[in-house]
C-alpha cells in the first residue's frame, strides 16, 4: 500500500466526502485510508448508493403486506399476483446523463433498470418512462426531447421489452435539468426469485458481460493523480449502452437462475464493481477478496480506481452455487459473453482488493455499507408559501371557455403523446392488452394465466411544488386511481424522488414533506413501498439571473396492480352513443378561488402557479377506487377515466376524442365556471354505463359520491352549466386537431 498523501483529508471533497466523513472513516478503520479507499468510501456513501440524506426519512414508509414478496433492499421489489407469479418492478432516474447526452443518457437509463429486474430472476416485460422537460418552444428542449425519446426507443425496442406507458410534462424548472425516470417490470415464478447475495464462504465471484472502460467513474471529480495517465480528454463523458449485449446478458442471467446454479446475482450500476460486490457481501454478512488484475478491460493501462468505479454498462456479478461452477459456465458459453472468476467469498468481514500482487484496499464491509445519516432542518420557502396562499377569487373567468378547452388540450403536458409512444415498440412480447393512449394505465396479460398486470407512473410536480405533502400523496392517489380505471387492484409502489440540493433547508423541507405524504397515502391505499431511487441536486444556475434554480420537486410514483381476469377491464374511450356518464368522487367545485388552485388552467391561461392544492381525502380516494373497481368487475362499465391535468372538461374531451363518440353533459352548481370545468380536484373518475339503476345502487352501497353528468353521443363535446346559463360545444375534430399537433411538432 502506498503511503497516503498528506493532503488526502484536504481533498476529501474530491472523493465526495466531507472532512467530517473523512474523519469518521479514519476512526472507523483506525488508520489513514489510501486514495483508492477514500474514493471507494466516497462512492459508497454517496446519496446514490448510501442514501445518506434520504434514508432517515424512509422509516416512515410502509413496506410490508401480504402482497409483498420482496420489499426494499434488493435490486427491485417484488409483489405477488397469485398463481405462483410475482412481478418485480423498480424505477430509476438517469437525469444528469440525459442532460449531457440525451440519447445515450436515456438509453443507459433503460439498460440499468432492466438489469435490476432480471437480476431478481424476473423476465423484464414492460417499461414505462416518466419524462420532464423545460420550455417546449426552446431549441434545447427539442434537442433533449428528441434525444431522450430516441434513446429509450433505441434501447427498449432493440432489447425487445415493450415500452407501454409513461408521462411527459413540460415546465420551465426543468429547462437545464430534465428528468428521465424509467420504470421496468418483470415477471417471475416465485421459486425463481434471486437475491443479490454472496452466499457462503468459499463461493466464487464471477464477472459477466462487457469489458470495463473508463466510463462514468461515479461522476466524481478526481484529482488527476488518482487516475491513470489517460488525460481527462480520453475519459469518456458518456457511457454508451449496447442493448444487444444486454439482451445476451439478460438471457444468460435468466438461464443460470432458472437452472438453479447461482446463489447470488447483482448488476453493476452506480459505482460499478465496488457497489455491486460490496452490497452483495453485506447482505451475506461476509467478506470478499477480489483480484483487480482479472477484471477484463476495454482499454490498456487501467488502474484500480478506474477498475473499481467505472460505470461501464452491461455488466453483472454472478455467484455460482458451490460445485455447480462448470454448469454455470457451460450455460453462459452459449451467449458468448466474457465470463471471468475475479474472487471469492471469505470468512473475514473485509472488502479486500488486490492488484499486481498487493492489497490495495482493505476496508470493513459494514463500514462501506453503513453510510452516515443526516437529518437536516427543513424550512418552507417563504416565496412558495406566499404563492400557495394567494387569493385567487378575484381572477376573471374567461368569456370563451371553449377556446380555453382547446388551449389546454394543446398544452404539451396534456396533448397527445402518440408521437412519442409510436416510436416505442409497445407490443413486442405479445402481452400488451391496453396500449399507450388507450387508458389511464397499461395492462399486460400473463401468458398461461387469466391474470393481468397493470402499471402506471404519476406525479403532478406543480402540486408538489405548492404543497409537497399533499402533492406527493396525490401522486400516489392518482396512480392508484389510474390502476382502478383499467380494473386493476393497486398492489404496491416504487418511487423516484427527484429533488434539488438537500442542504438547502427549503429543499429538505420538500423532501421531508413529500416522503411523509407518500407514506400516508400508501398506508391509506394499502400500497406498500417496495423500493425506489433518489436523485438529489437537480438544479442549475440560471445564466441571466445567476440564481440557482431547483427543479420542481418530483416524487414520481410507479405503481403496479393486478387484474384477476384480464378480460374484465376498462379503457377511456366511449364505446357507444346513448350511455350515461357519471362522475364518481369529489363533488364538483364548491368554494371559489381555491378550486382552481395549482391547476394547469391557472398556469396556462392566467400565467399563475399559485393557490392551494385541492384537499386530498384519502378515505374518499379509497372508496372511489373501490367503486370504480366494483363497476368494472360487475360488468357495469368498461369505460373509465380519471380527471387529472385540465380537470373534468379535459377528461371528457379525451374520452370523446379516443373513440369519435361525442357527449353532452351538464354540470350543476353555481361555483366559478372555470373551476367546474378545469379545476383539478383529486379522487374523480368518469364512467359510462348502460344500467344506471344498478350503477347507482352499487355506488350508494359503497358510499361513493356520484353525479349523473349526461349522455354519450354526437360528434362534439358539449358541456353546459345550466345554473349559470353557460354552454360550450366543440367538435371532436377540432379538439383532436388541437390535441394531436403539439408533440408532433416538437418531435419534428
Amino acid at each position: 500500500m502506498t503511503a497516503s498523501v498528506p493532503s488526502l483529508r484536504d481533498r476529501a471533497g474530491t472523493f465526495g466526502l466531507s472532512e467530517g466523513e473523512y474523519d469518521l472513516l479514519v476512526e472507523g478503520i483506525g488508520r489513514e485510508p489510501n486514495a483508492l479507499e477514500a474514493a471507494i468510501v466516497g462512492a459508497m456513501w454517496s446519496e446514490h448508493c448510501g442514501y445518506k440524506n434520504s434514508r432517515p426519512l424512509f422509516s416512515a414508509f410502509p413496506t410490508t403486506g401480504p402482497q409483498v414478496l420482496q420489499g426494499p433492499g434488493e435490486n427491485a421489489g417484488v409483489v405477488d399476483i397469485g398463481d405462483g407469479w410475482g412481478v418485480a418492478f423498480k424505477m430509476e432516474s438517469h437525469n444528469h446523463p440525459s442532460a449531457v447526452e440525451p440519447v445515450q443518457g436515456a438509453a443507459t437509463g433503460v439498460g440499468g433498470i432492466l438489469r435490476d429486474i432480471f437480476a431478481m430472476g424476473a423476465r423484464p416485460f414492460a417499461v414505462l418512462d416518466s419524462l420532464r422537460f423545460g420550455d417546449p418552444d426552446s431549441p434545447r428542449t427539442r434537442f433533449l426531447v428528441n434525444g431522450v425519446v430516441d434513446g429509450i426507443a433505441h434501447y427498449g425496442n432493440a432489447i425487445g421489452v415493450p415500452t407501454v406507458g409513461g408521462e411527459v410534462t413540460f415546465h420551465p424548472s426543468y429547462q437545464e435539468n430534465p428528468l428521465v425516470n424509467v420504470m421496468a417490470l418483470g415477471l417471475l415464478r416465485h421459486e425463481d426469485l434471486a437475491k443479490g447475495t454472496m452466499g457462503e464462504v468459499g463461493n466464487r465471484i464471477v464477472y459477466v458481460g462487457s469489458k470495463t472502460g473508463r466510463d462514468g467513474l461515479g461522476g466524481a471529480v478526481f484529482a488527476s493523480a488518482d487516475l491513470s495517465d489517460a488525460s481527462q480528454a480520453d475519459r469518456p463523458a458518456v457511457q454508451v449502452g449496447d442493448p444487444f449485449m444486454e439482451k445476451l446478458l439478460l438471457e444468460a442471467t435468466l438461464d443460470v437462475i432458472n437452472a438453479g446454479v447461482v446463489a447470488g446475482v447483482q448488476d453493476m450500476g452506480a459505482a460499478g464493481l465496488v457497489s455491486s460486490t460490496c452490497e452483495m457481501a453485506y447482505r451475506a454478512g461476509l467478506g470478499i477478496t477480489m483480484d483487480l488484475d482479472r477484471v477484463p478491460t476495454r482499454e490498456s493501462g487501467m488502474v484500480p480506481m478506474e477498475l473499481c468505479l467505472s460505470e461501464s454498462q452491461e455488466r453483472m456479478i454472478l455467484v455460482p452455487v458451490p460445485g455447480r461452477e462448470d454448469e454455470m459456465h457451460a450455460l453462459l458459453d452459449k451467449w458468448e459473453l466474457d465470463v471471468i472468476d475475479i474472487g471469492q467469498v471469505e470468512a473475514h468481514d473485509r472488502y479486500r482488493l488486490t492488484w499486481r500482487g498487493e492489497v490495495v484496499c482493505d476496508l470493513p464491509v459494514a463500514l462501506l455499507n453503513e453510510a452516515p445519516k443526516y437529518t437536516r432542518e427543513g424550512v418552507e420557502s417563504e416565496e412558495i408559501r406566499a404563492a400557495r396562499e394567494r387569493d385567487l377569487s378575484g381572477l376573471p373567468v374567461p368569456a370563451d371557455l371553449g377556446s380555453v378547452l382547446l388551449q389546454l388540450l394543446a398544452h404539451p403536458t396534456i396533448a397527445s403523446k402518440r408521437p412519442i409512444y409510436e416510436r416505442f415498440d409497445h407490443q413486442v412480447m405479445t402481452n400488451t392488452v391496453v396500449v399507450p393512449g388507450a387508458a389511464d394505465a397499461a395492462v399486460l396479460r400473463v401468458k398461461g394465466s387469466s391474470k393481468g398486470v397493470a402499471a402506471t407512473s404519476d406525479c403532478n410536480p406543480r402540486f408538489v411544488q405548492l404543497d409537497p405533502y399533499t402533492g406527493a400523496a396525490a401522486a400516489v392517489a392518482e396512480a392508484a386511481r389510474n390502476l382502478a380505471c383499467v380494473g386493476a387492484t393497486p398492489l404496491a409502489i416504487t418511487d423516484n424522488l427527484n429533488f434539488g440540493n438537500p442542504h438547502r433547508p427549503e429543499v429538505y423541507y420538500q423532501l421531508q414533506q413529500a416522503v411523509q405524504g407518500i407514506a400516508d397515502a400508501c398506508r391509506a391505499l394499502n400500497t406498500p413501498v417496495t423500493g425506489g431511487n433518489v436523485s438529489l441536486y437537480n438544479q442549475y444556475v440560471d445564466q441571466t439571473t445567476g440564481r440557482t434554480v431547483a427543479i420542481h420537486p418530483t416524487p414520481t410514483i410507479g405503481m403496479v396492480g393486478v387484474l384477476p381476469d384480464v378480460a374484465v377491464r376498462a379503457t377511456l374511450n366511449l364505446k357507444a352513443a346513448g350511455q350515461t356518464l357519471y362522475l364518481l368522487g369529489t363533488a364538483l367545485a364548491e368554494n371559489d378561488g381555491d378550486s382552481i388552485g395549482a391547476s394547469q388552467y391557472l398556469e396556462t391561461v392566467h400565467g399563475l402557479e399559485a393557490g392551494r392544492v385541492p384537499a386530498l381525502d384519502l378515505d374518499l380516494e379509497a372508496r372511489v377506487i373501490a367503486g370504480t373497481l366494483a363497476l368494472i368487475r360487475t360488468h357495469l362499465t368498461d369505460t373509465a377515466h380519471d380527471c387529472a391535468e385540465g380537470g373534468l372538461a379535459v377528461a371528457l374531451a379525451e374520452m370523446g376524442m379516443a373513440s369519435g363518440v361525442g357527449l353532452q353533459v351538464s354540470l350543476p352548481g353555481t361555483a366559478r365556471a372555470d373551476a367546474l370545468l378545469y379545476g383539478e380536484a383529486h379522487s374523480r373518475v368518469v364512467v359510462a354505463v348502460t344500467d344506471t339503476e344498478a350503477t347507482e345502487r352499487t355506488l350508494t352501497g359503497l358510499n361513493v359520491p356520484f353525479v349523473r353528468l349526461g349522455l354519450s353521443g354526437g360528434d362534439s363535446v358539449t358541456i353546459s352549466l345550466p345554473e349559470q346559463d353557460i354552454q360550450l360545444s366543440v367538435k371532436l375534430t377540432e379538439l383532436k386537431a388541437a390535441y394531436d399537433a403539439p408533440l408532433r411538432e416538437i418531435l419534428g
Partner: protein
Amino acid sequence: MSPEPTKTYQATVFQAKVFVTLKPSILDPQGRTVERALSHLGQQASGVRVGKLIELQLEGERGEVETRLQDMAVNVLSNPVMEDVRWELEEAPVQAVAGA
C-alpha cells in the same frame, strides 16, 4: 446570363467529405459486434470501429467554404461529447452539381 458568371459558379462548387468517428475511449458496440461476426465467418480483424462518412457539396469561395465546413463538421455533423471529426474538401466536377 453571361458565360463568365457561369464559369465562376462552376469553379466554386466543392465536394466535401466529413469523417465522423467515435472517440477511442468510447465503447463502439457496433464495431464490437461486427468484429465478432467477422471472426465467426472466419475473417479475422481487430479494432473494428464503425463511423460515418458524410458527403456534401458546398458553394462559394474556397476560404469561406472551408470556414463553413469546419463549422458544420464540428457543430452539427458530429457530437463533440462522443465523436471526433475530420474533413476533406475538393473542387467538384461540374456534373456533380446537377446531381445535388
